[in-house]
């Protein structure tokens, strides 16, 4: 069951998306867009948290996937 690594990949994707959003927020000069990007970065962060928790659980249940 290689779910562990898949979930981690997914997590990494989300983290990079969050970083992208934050950098867009910095780049744009449009105040409204800046705000929107920042809010969405927070939103994605909200999705990252439960996923991180899930990764910890998987690692706990199946230690052979630790570190993947």
């Amino acid at each position, binding site marked *: 069951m290689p*779910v562990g690594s*898949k*979930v981690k990949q*997914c997590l990494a*994707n*989300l983290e*990079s*998306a969050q970083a*992208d*959003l934050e950098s*867009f927020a910095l780049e*744009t*000069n*449009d105040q*409204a*867009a800046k*705000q*929107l*990007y920042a*809010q*969405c970065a927070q*939103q*994605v962060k*909200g*999705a*990252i948290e*439960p*996923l991180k*928790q*899930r990764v910890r*659980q998987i690692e706990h249940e199946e230690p052979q996937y630790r570190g993947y």
Partner: protein
Amino acid sequence: MTFWQQVFFSVDILSLTALMMRGIIMYTLIVLVTRVMGQREVGNMTTFDAVVTITVGNIAAAPMFNNEDSVIRPAIAIVTLGVLHVMTSAAGTRWPHWRRLVGGQPVVLIKDGKVLEENLRAARLTLDDLMQELRLKEAPRLSDVEVAVMEPRGRISVIKRPQVQPATRGDLGLPAQRTGLPAILVVDGKIQHKNLKQAGLTEGWLRARLRRSGITDLKQVAVAQVDAGGALYVDRTDDALAPPVSRAKPALAARLKKTAAQLERFALDTADPEARQQYREAARRVREALERLAPLLRASDRFAGVLPTPEPESDEAKRRLERWAPGRNKPGEG
């Protein structure tokens, strides 16, 4: 006193037209002689080159405005100098000893970080001169310099120790692609057939590539350049209005969409109800973020800062934009 006599010989009175004729003759002569003498630029001359050139200029100057000078004698002097110079240079290419005698030879100023004071004196350089040159060559620390050489043309070349030299692709074991000489294929909408042929490409290929990047009319192309790898760069005539659109934002949207789908898949696959809940929650948040971002990520801001942001298409989008970015679409703006 005929016109041509005035032009060529020493006379008492010089008419205006004859004066101009002298100018034309000397100019042509100088151009010819300097061409024959070689095409080194002024900054790249040996002292010897420079002296000969200045002498030629001096000789040429007087007869152009002085009625007491004849043109014939300076002309002969110039031609003689030119021929001599060419012969000396030619001799230099054949006999190295002669070359060193005439053109000077390189003098080593620094070796392994040690300044060779004697050679510095021989080159009539001060330490200040040397340090100035090192700073310009971005090697201000003497210990970083492996070799510094005063070249015969008056420049100083600096070779830095490998420790302070930037790593090359070879050092890092990175693949090195041949850059070759890029060729300009289109200028102002006109195909440069000669360059096209030299690059080994055909007009059909070029037109197909342009069509692929959305250009049907050659007039839209200001410059098209191809590199050795076959990549085509196109600069459009209307680029002030339509700069290349960044793909970063659509890519981000796609990535978020993919992640949401993956999370939903995990939720379906897992047997653990708690885990399912966690995945669903994460997917929901990603979808929500995606929905909020839709107006920003879709309406690629290619006109950002140039034109007002386009109106969102639907009322729904407008409402969303208003909710998350108040004041962005006030009536009367946009």
